[in-house]
């Protein structure tokens, strides 16, 4: 794996240098979210720069998943402001977030179980397809050419993720690791600007984790996608991410490059030092 090489560059660049060159893709300002009495997120601010891999870490129940849900419009925070691509957004439905270029995978795989791998990834093309109902009645004209064009795109992703052999298998029958890979494929099919990955390597063995790490790095390189990554495996986080934000009990306790965060005493207390 070329993780080390990839890591060198951003690690060297980050410390406060050239702020004007960096473009902020998403910024979260003073966001708070609570469920009844549970304060899942409390006054959190951070940003994600274009092209970076941004890790979000923290112990169980820290509010990481809730944060992603806020970013893609699934939860509406009670307070705070979210800016995506320079535009402030208020309450929005998830499909609007999707149409603006935010895609995600889920902590507990949320694939369409009865559909094949191919159809699952094709489903990621939903927003790219516009052909009229009329042509679909006959599977002809615009409907047919659009299906073909998108099928070709999807086949690229299938090649990229090395899942050709399970193309026609209903995903409900696939092993967990493969399902996670298909889910990544579905998100990639959306050609997102920002890709949110919620524990993409949970429950995987070492080899599968290495594959997934490679895919994540390749995705950024090939598609230029910005990635927000939640992950518990600290090795993976240190290897992959450019910057890390650490949450604990709904609060932000650290934010910076992996080396910095790793040395932060609060983080060590809250998370790194405590095995779980």
């Amino acid at each position: 794996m070329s993780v080390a090489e990839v890591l060198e560059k951003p690690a060297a660049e980050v410390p406060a240098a050239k702020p004007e060159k960096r473009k902020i893709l998403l910024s979260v300002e003073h966001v708070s979210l609570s469920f009844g009495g549970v304060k899942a997120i409390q006054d959190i601010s951070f940003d994600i720069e274009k092209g970076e891999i941004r890790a979000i870490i923290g112990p169980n129940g820290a509010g990481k998943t809730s944060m992603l849900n806020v970013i893609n419009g699934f939860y509406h925070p009670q307070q705070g402001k979210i800016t995506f691509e320079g535009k402030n957004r208020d309450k929005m439905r998830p499909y609007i977030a999707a149409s603006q270029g935010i895609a995600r995978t889920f902590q507990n795989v949320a694939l369409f179980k009865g559909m094949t791998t191919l159809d699952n990834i094709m489903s990621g093309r939903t927003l790219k397809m516009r052909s009229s109902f009329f042509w679909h009645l006959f599977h002809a004209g615009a409907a047919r050419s659009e299906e073909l064009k998108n099928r070709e795109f999807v086949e690229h992703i299938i090649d990229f993720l090395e899942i050709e052999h399970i193309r026609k298998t209903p995903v409900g029958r696939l092993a967990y690791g493969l399902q996670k890979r298909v889910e990544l494929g579905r998100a990639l099919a959306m050609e997102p600007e920002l890709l949110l990955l919620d524990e993409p390597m949970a429950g995987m063995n070492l080899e599968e984790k290495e594959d997934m790490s490679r895919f994540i790095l390749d995705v950024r390189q090939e598609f230029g996608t910005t990635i927000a990554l939640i992950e518990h495996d600290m090795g993976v986080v240190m290897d992959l991410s450019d910057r890390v934000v650490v949450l604990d009990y709904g609060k932000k306790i650290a934010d910076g490059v992996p080396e910095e965060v790793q040395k932060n005493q609060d983080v060590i207390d809250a998370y790194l030092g405590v095995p779980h």
Partner: protein
Amino acid sequence: MFYRETGQFKTSYAEDMALFPVIQDRIGIGVILIVAFVAIPLLANDFFIASIMIPFLIFALATVGLNILTGYCGQLSLGTGAFMGVGAYACYKLTTIFPEVNIIVMVLLSGFFAAGIGVVFGLPSLRIKGFYLAVATLAAQFFLEWCFIRIRWLYNYNDSGAIETVDHTAFGLVLAGPSAEPLTRYFIVLVIVIAMTWVASNLLRGRFGRQWMMIRDMDIAAELIGVRPLQAKLLAFAVSSFYCGVAGAMMVFFWLGAAEPAAFNINLSFQILFMVILGGLGSIAGCFMGAAFIWILPLIIRTAPLLFGVEISAALVEHIAFMVTGALIIFILIVEPHGLARIWQIIRQKLRVWPFPY
């Protein structure tokens, strides 16, 4: 003849997207079409055509309709009977208002009325799911049945409260009504059912079908990907009810000739639902298997004892048929939730590797 895919290489995605990518399946469909269009008309008697084939095809179409909604989009409905009724009454009114227009056109037009009503009663599906939605569609069923009885305008204020067809002619041929030949009606029904089944398969393999299945399998993820649940579900209700409406209109105009409101009651809803479950949720071929099974089984139970010289009463036949169907449904739900279509697929899979399964 071996059932094999080996050696059949698809050289383009277009070929891979075809309805029947495997040659043997194409041959199978060809054989079925020849039987339907040539063998049955040549060999079968009027009873077989009028009382077995025509209703079987009509039920199969309604089953396709319900399967789109329930099997593909995951929205359980118990209002099928009423939606079929909407089609039947709409067609009846259309033919009284415009007696000159070709009956086939009217049958297809009445589907749009059913679609409209279906959309209205599909609105609750945006808020409620599963069992609760089933109850809401049940309310639709009873409300519409009530309309069929109470709104006398619907049956032209006649005393019987039933709708009846008069003869409809076109091209010098009686297409529907008391003096229409069974064979004529059979061909009309056959062509409509095949054409609409083809259209349904087209819809299902494109982006609309995918959106329905996305909603069925995981509605939250579907929304996060960009499906608008409102539009997708209502479209499923519309298309599904259109199919049921056309089936209902055909039921009166090409099969029974007359119908009372009770023809479209909850029993019909359940009958179609059983056909969907038995045939297989989410399978178009299964619709035909389920319809054949449930429609033809009672006929076999009725005729089998006659062959041995035993008379049994019609009521008893019905009870036996009910029990057998019920037992089968339970069996299918437990053993093979994907129905006859899936069982057929397993047989096919076995054939594929036969005679060396390992």
